[in-house]
Structures are given as C-alpha cells and as structure tokens.
C-alpha cells in the first residue's frame, strides 16, 4: 500500500482526492482536470469504437455474439425510452444509450483497485490522479446541463416560443400570478439537472471515499484490521457494483423523463 506519507490516512485520502490539473488563463475556473477528462474521453472513444464495430456490420440475419449483445443493450434502452416517451425517439434513444453505457463504464472505474491507476500514472509522472470521472462534479454537471439544454430545446420545439413562454408565465397559478409562475418554473427547471448531477456525484464520491477508508484498514498494521479491510473491500465492492448499475440506469431514465416531459403540454 502507499500509505507511507507522514500524515497517515487523512494524508492518503487527501492525496487521492486531488486531481491532475493544468491551469491556463487567470482564476481557478480556467483549470482542466486532465484525469477526469482523459479517463472519460478514453472510455467514451473505446465504447464508441466497440459499439460501432458491432453496429456497422449489423445484419438482419443471424447476429454475431457481439451484435447480439449490443442489440440486447439497444433493445433494453429502447424499451425504457418507449415506456416513457411516445414520439420521435431518434435523439432520445441514442442519448439514453450513450448516457447509460458511458456512465456505467465511468462508474465501473470505481471498482478498479484503488491505487493501481494512480500508481501507474504516478510512474508516468502524474502527481495526482483520480480515475473515476463520475465522482467529479464537473462530469455530472456537464451531462445534466446538456440534458437541461436539450430539455429547453425540446420545449421550444414542441410548444413554440410563444407557447413555451405562455406556459412558463401562466402555469400553474394562472396569468395573474405571472412572476410567481416564472419563479416556480425556473426552480423546477433548474432543480432537475441539479438533482440529476448531485445524485450521481454523491453516490460515486461516497463510494470512492469508502473504498479509501477501507484501504486505510489494510494499512493500519494489525492482522485483524487487515482481514477486516479485505472483507470490507470485497463487501463494499460487491455492493458498489449494484450502485454503479443503478445510478447509471437512474441517470438515463431521468434524463429521458425530463426531455419527454418537456414535450408534453400542460
């Protein structure tokens, strides 16, 4: 284990919670977390390549195993989307599939052995490295904001500018309470991406933190604690697998629900 730092466990955890960043421009905002962005992009490209490899030679005859697997995935996502939304799913389907698979794979980085990736990256010269992109607010916010933009876009598309404005100012309390309606609708609109991203971030961050605490047991120097740590790591890892899938699924379904709701008339 890598707990040789003088600060012990808290030092270890702090070390693991720092990103590999590069700064450009003034202010702390103009920082890019190379680890977060790098891991998510690598995963995204890999999964796109994988899916594309199965999709571009998809036949309507007997499918290969890869195609059958991807079709299973597509059918599952398509079913979920069609349960919620009865309309044109040309965007919503791919959106849901991308969210589900991408978030799932990014979450899966959480069950990777905690120190392996940072250690390897350390060999490559990175001082800090966080391998789980979804335990990072930037990632989850980026996705939920994209969903928000799509929600607004589809609201305009389905109801027209005037229809959407009318809805914002008159629903739910009628035209005499227009400012109040606006406030309510804005809160409703903004609470969606906020809760969406916070839910995923919170789950993954907590999961990661718990892995770090359990790893602290491994390095505590006692055989009993070491055994407890191994057991705890295994138990939490299995439980985390469940959380990983559930969170990816929830993110997908809620995104679809939000965009589908935007196209419904009140």
């Amino acid at each position, binding site marked *: 284990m890598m707990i040789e730092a003088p600060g012990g466990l808290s030092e270890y955890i702090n070390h693991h919670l720092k990103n590999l960043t590069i700064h450009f421009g003034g202010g702390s905002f*103009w920082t890019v977390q190379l680890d977060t962005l790098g891991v998510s*992009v690598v995963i995204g490209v890999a999964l796109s390549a994988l899916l594309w490899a199965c*999709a571009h030679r998809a036949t309507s005859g007997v499918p290969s195993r890869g195609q059958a697997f991807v079709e299973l995935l597509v059918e599952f996502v398509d079913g979920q989307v069609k349960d919620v939304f009865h309309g044109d799913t040309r965007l919503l389907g791919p959106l849901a599939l991308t969210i589900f698979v991408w978030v799932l794979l990014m979450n899966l980085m959480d069950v990777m052995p905690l120190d392996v990736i940072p250690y390897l990256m350390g060999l490559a010269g990175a001082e800090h490295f966080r391998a789980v992109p979804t335990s990072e607010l930037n*990632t989850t916010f980026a996705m939920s904001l994209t969903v928000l933009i799509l929600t607004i876009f589809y609201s305009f598309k389905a109801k027209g500018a005037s229809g959407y404005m009318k809805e914002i100012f008159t629903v739910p309390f009628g035209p005499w309470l227009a400012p109040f309606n606006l406030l309510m609708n804005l809160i409703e609109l903004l609470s969606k991406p906020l809760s969406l991203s916070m839910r995923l971030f919170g789950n993954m961050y907590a999961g990661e933190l718990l892995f770090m605490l359990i790893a602290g047991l491994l390095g505590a120097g006692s055989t009993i604690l070491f055994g407890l740590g191994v057991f705890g790591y295994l138990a939490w890892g299995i439980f985390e697998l469940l959380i990983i899938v559930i969170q990816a699924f929830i993110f997908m379904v809620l995104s679809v629900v939000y965009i589908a709701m935007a196209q419904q008339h009140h």
Partner: protein
Amino acid sequence: MNINATLFGEAIAFALLIWFCMHFIWPPLLNAMTERQQKVAEGLEAAERAHAELKQADTQVADEVRKARQQATEILGKAQQQANLVMEKARADAQAEIGRQQAGAQANIDRMVESAREQLRGQVANLAMQGAEKILQREIGPAAHKALLDQLVTGI
C-alpha cells in the same frame, strides 16, 4: 472538486458521443432489429400458411384415395358382372351346340337303325325262305307261296 473548465470539455465530449451514437450506432442496429423482426414475422406467417396448405393437401389426398378406392371397387364389380355375363353366354352357347350335335347324331343313328332294320328284314325273309325251303323241299315253290312270303315279310 471545484467547477471549472473541465465542465466544457465533458459537455463537448458528451455531445460528441451522443452525436456519434445517433448517426453511426443507433440507426443501423435498430434497422437490423426491425428488419429481423419483420423477417421473423414473415417466416412465421409463411410457416403457418405452409402448414395450412399441407393440411389441405392431406385432406385432398385422402379424398382422392377414397375416390380411387371406390372407383376400383366399382370397376371390380363391373368386371365381375361382365365375366358372369360372358360365362353365362358361353355356357348357353355350349348347351345349344351340344343340343344341336346330339340331335344330328340321333338323326344319324335313327337313319342307320332304319336301314339296318330294312336290311335285316330282307335277310330274315331270305333266311326264312331258305329255312322253309330246306324244311319243305319241293313242296313249296317260291312262285306258289309268293303271297304268303310277302305277308310274312310285312309281318316282321
């Protein structure tokens, strides 16, 4: 942990992934799936149709077989009848022929019996004459007893 420019990078990456999926992954897969669905539906329908056709053909065949059997029985019956008819006729013909032959033979026999009887009659008369001549010797001359002899002959 802070919100920073990474957000934009992630958002762009996310948008690109969605775009890629929307153009290169979702449509071909969904097309293949719908097409297969259609194919399977067509296959099932064809199988059902073939099944129905087979059933129909089966009943047709059974019908034909039944008809053929009936026809065969009919033909057999007719042939039997014909054979009986022919046999009857042959028997009748043979009977008639036998009758005719019998009649001819009878006539022949009658004729021969008649002629034999005629001959025998002459010979018996002669024999009687000779016998009588020998018994009576000279007492009787054929001329004197001609009337008697004639009477004798017709008496036989």
